[in-house]
C-alpha cells in the first residue's frame, strides 16, 4: 500500500514520460527482452553445444593427423571440412548470442537518452521498432547460417541466411542513424530537456547497481589489458607452432602408430590452448557485458514496480551472478565441469534477476495504462499493477 501511495504522487509525470506504446517503452521492454533472450540462448549454447563441439573438433583434428601420416590427402581435406563446419556451428551461435545482447543494450541506452533526442514521437516509435526488428532479424539470420549454408544462394560465398542477417544489421544502422540525428538536433536546441525520472533516481538498488556495474566494467578492462599484454601474442605463436608440430610429426616422425607421440602431445596442447583462449575471452566479455547491464538496470529502477526488498534482492542477485559467471569460467580449466556448472548457475542468476526486473517493468506499465485509462474515463483499465 505504501508503495502504491508513493507511486501515485510520481505517476502523473511518469505516465507522461512512459506512455503506452511509446518509443521509450518499446526501447526499454524490447531491450530487456533482447538481452534476456540472448542470455538464455547463451546459457543453453554453453551447456548443450559448446563442449561437445570442442570434442568433435579435437577428434577431427586427430583424424587429419592420422590421414597425413597415411598419405591420405583427400581425407585430410574432409577432416578440415568437418572442422570448418564445427567452427561455423560454434561461431554463428556465439555471434547470435553476442549481437542479440548488444542490440538489447543499445535499445536500453537509447531509452535512457530519450529525453535528449529531438524527434517526433511517431518517428521515434518507427525507429525503435526498426531497431528491435533488426535486433531480432540479425541474430536469427546468423543462427541460421550454419543450417542454410549456400542453398539456393545467388552469391558465391554468402548464403540467404547471411543476407537476412545483413539486412537486420542494416535496419539497426538506419535506426541508430535516425536517433543520432535526433541527438544532434538536441545538441543544437538550447531548450532544456524535460525533467526525467531515470537519472534522478537515488534508490538503494539503483545506486548499488550503478556502482557495481562501473566496478565490473573496470575489472573487465583491466583483465582485457592483462590478456592482451601477456597472453594474446604468445597464444597466437603457440597456435602456429603446435599446428606446425602436428603436421611435421605426422609426416616425418619414424615409428608405428597413427598419431606419433610428438603429434599427440601437440594435439593435446592445442586443445588446452584453445580452451585457455576461449575462457579468457569469455570472462573478459561477460564481465563487461554484465557491468553494462547492471549500470542500465540501475537506471530503470524507478520503472520497476516491485517492493523495495525485492528490488534490492534482484540487484544483489544480478551483481552476484555477474561476478560468479566470469570467475567460474576462468576456473574451468582447473576445476572442469564443476566450474562449468557454477558458471551456468551464475548465468541463471543473471537471467532470474533480469526476468524479475522485467516483470516489474511490465507491472509498472500495466499500472500506468490502467491509471491513464481511468483518467480518460474509458474504464476497464488494468489497475493495481497487475499484468
Amino acid at each position: 500500500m505504501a508503495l502504491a501511495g508513493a507511486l501515485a504522487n510520481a505517476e502523473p509525470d511518469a505516465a507522461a514520460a512512459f506512455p503506452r506504446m511509446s518509443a521509450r517503452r518499446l526501447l526499454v521492454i524490447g531491450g530487456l527482452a533482447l538481452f534476456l533472450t540472448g542470455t538464455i540462448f547463451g546459457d543453453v549454447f554453453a551447456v548443450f553445444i559448446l563442449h561437445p563441439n570442442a570434442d568433435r573438433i579435437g577428434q577431427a583434428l586427430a583424424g587429419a593427423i592420422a590421414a597425413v601420416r597415411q598419405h591420405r590427402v583427400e581425407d585430410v581435406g574432409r577432416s578440415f571440412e568437418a572442422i570448418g563446419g564445427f567452427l561455423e556451428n560454434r561461431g554463428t551461435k556465439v555471434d547470435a548470442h553476442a549481437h542479440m545482447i548488444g542490440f538489447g543494450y543499445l535499445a536500453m541506452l537509447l531509452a535512457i537518452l530519450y529525453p535528449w533526442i529531438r524527434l517526433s514521437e511517431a518517428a521515434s516509435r518507427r525507429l525503435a521498432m526498426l531497431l528491435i526488428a533488426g535486433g531480432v532479424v540479425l541474430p536469427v539470420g546468423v543462427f541460421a547460417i550454419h543450417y542454410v549454408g549456400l542453398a539456393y544462394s545467388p552469391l558465391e560465398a554468402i548464403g540467404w541466411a547471411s543476407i537476412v542477417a545483413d539486412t537486420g544489421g542494416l535496419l539497426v544502422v538506419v535506426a541508430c542513424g535516425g536517433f543520432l540525428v535526433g541527438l544532434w538536433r538536441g545538441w543544437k536546441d538550447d531548450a532544456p530537456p524535460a525533467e526525467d525520472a531515470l537519472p534522478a533516481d537515488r534508490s538503494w538498488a539503483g545506486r548499488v547497481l550503478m556502482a557495481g556495474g562501473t566496478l565490473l566494467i573496470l575489472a573487465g578492462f583491466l583483465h582485457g589489458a592483462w590478456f592482451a599484454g601477456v597472453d594474446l601474442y604468445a597464444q597466437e605463436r603457440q597456435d602456429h607452432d603446435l599446428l606446425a608440430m602436428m603436421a611435421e610429426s605426422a609426416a616425418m616422425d619414424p615409428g608405428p602408430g597413427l598419431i606419433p607421440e610428438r603429434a599427440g602431445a601437440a594435439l593435446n596442447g592445442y586443445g588446452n590452448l584453445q580452451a585457455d583462449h576461449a575462457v579468457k575471452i569469455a570472462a573478459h566479455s561477460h564481465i563487461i557485458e554484465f557491468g553494462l547491464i547492471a549500470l542500465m538496470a540501475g537506471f530503470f529502477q524507478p520503472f520497476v514496480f516491485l517492493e523495495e526488498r525485492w528490488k534490492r534482492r534482484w540487484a544483489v542477485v544480478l551483481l552476484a551472478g555477474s561476478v560468479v559467471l566470469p570467475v567460474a569460467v576462468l576456473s574451468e580449466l582447473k576445476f572442469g565441469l564443476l566450474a562449468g556448472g557454477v558458471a551456468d548457475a551464475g548465468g541463471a542468476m543473471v537471467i532470474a534477476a533480469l526476468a524479475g526486473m522485467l516483470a516489474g517493468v511490465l507491472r509498472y506499465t500495466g499500472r500506468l495504462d490502467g491509471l491513464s485509462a481511468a483518467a480518460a474515463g474509458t474504464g476497464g483499465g488494468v489497475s493495481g499493477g497487475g499484468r
Partner: protein
Amino acid sequence: MRRAQQMLAIAGLALAVWAMTYGFYYAVWIEHQTLDHIGGWLAGAFQHAAMRDMTAARAGLDDYARAKYVYTREVDAHSHWIGMAMVLLALAALWNRLEFGEVARRMLAGALILGAYGFPLGVLLQNHLAAPIGQGVAVITSGLLIVAFAMVAYGYARRA
C-alpha cells in the same frame, strides 16, 4: 544537457553507427572470404604434409597464421568499437552525477572519447602499419581509458 554530456552521447552514438556500418561492410564483403582463406590455408598445409612437401606445408601454415592474425584484429576492432560506444552512452546519461567541475568533466569526456575511438583503431592499425605502431596506439589509448574510467568511478564514489 551539458556540453561534456552531449559530447559523450553524440560521440557514443556516432561510434555505434560507425562500428555497425563497419561490421555490416565487413560481414558482407570480407568475413566469409577471409574465413574461407584461413580454412583453405590450414587444410592445404596439412595436405602438403600428407604429400611430404614440408616446405609448402610450412608456407601454408605461415599464411594461415597471418590471415588469422589479421582476422582477429578486424573482428576485435568491431567488437571493441561497439562495446566502447555502449560505455560512452551509459556514461553520458550518468555524467551529471560525477562530482567534478565542468572543465574536469570535459577533459575526462575527451579522454574517454579519444580512448574509445583510438583503442580499436590501434588494434586495427596493427594489420596495416608496422605492428609496434598499432600496438603503441592501442597501449596508450587503452591506458587512457583505464585511467579515465578509474577517475569516473572515483567521481561517483566521492559523491557517495
